[in-house]
């Protein structure tokens, strides 16, 4: 897989709800398109997205073929401690891309 963009606030107050926004490059091939010369382009989509906050899962999503290429996923969580947000995207080929971001909670 390829590039991902993640946006989280740099500094947070304890107990504050904050937004996490992610964008990842992926063709999200639905499996319904025909190839030139017949046959179908095999399905290849990101089927699972998980976000862990200091090891604990705080958000997860299962994706289906109707999701656009380069999926954008935004969600909220509550700032508890400084630490690491870890994001992982897994596609039909079984490859997983993992990115992490440090956050500071005061």
């Amino acid at each position: 897989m390829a590039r991902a963009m993640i946006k989280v606030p740099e500094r947070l107050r304890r107990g504050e709800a904050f937004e996490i926004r992610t964008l990842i490059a992926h063709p999200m091939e639905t499996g319904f398109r025909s190839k030139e010369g017949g046959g179908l382009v095999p399905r290849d989509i990101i089927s699972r997205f998980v976000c862990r906050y200091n090891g604990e899962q705080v958000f997860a999503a299962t994706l289906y073929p109707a999701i656009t290429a380069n999926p954008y996923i935004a969600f909220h969580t509550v700032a508890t401690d400084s630490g690491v947000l870890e994001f992982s995207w897994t596609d039909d080929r079984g490859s997983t891309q993992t990115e992490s971001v440090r956050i500071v909670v005061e």
Partner: protein
Amino acid sequence: MTDSRWACALRWAATACTALAAAGPTAQAGDPAQTALPAQWQTSVPGADRRSGFDFMQPATQAMQRDDVANPGMLSVADGERLWSLAVGDAGKACADCHGNARHSMRGVAVRLPAWDRRLERPTDLQQRINDCRASRQGAAPWPWEDARLLAVTAFVANQSRGMPITPDTDPRLEASRERGARLYRQRIGQLDFSCGDCHDSNAGRRLGGSVIPQAHPTGYPLYRLEWQALGSLQRRLRGCMTGVRAEPFGYGSTELVELELFLQWRARGMPLETPAVRP
């Protein structure tokens, strides 16, 4: 139109546009187009009424373009930045080895192109320049048209000029090509017998099926089109319209497409560049 009036108008536009940078265009960029067009290039969209395709979009799509984390075109810009400093070819050189930091060296480049190429002695657009550099300076194979890497480097270079007004090259050697582009724009083609102007001048702002017809100003290429689910070039867009009117499209990199690009750039002069734009 004298050169000094032109320069004055552009300075005005540059000041106005810098303030708008990254915020998405609001069209009325100064307005060099107020100055008279050569009669043979007149089109029916008067200068002051020019609107970027951005202004015809739904607010949600506009928001997508404005926000760099939601704009999928920025993924390609990031790719292009990586390719910029990657050494390739027989010369083992990266773009950065000659051009240095693109933030400075490439600022203002994309708003000038297509322009006259001294070495090739013909007008070339940004993608052709990049591929020419690959072949002649890096000793690498040129990328095919619409290759994701070519689009990425093009988007990265053009992104350095985001917010700057489109400033056509005034080289007199371009005039014949630009005029041929203007003629192609008005030429009826295909089984539907439409010219570009039949939709984009005479019916801009109205609907074709469910879609609003924009004025066809190439202000954000290469851009991310939701229909394509990918980044694409102006040439891809032009070819798409040609297929739409049931005409055989000109080939990628053909003289005709570059001439059309030259004319469209002239028609959009002074409008701020939005690369990478998002369009429906």
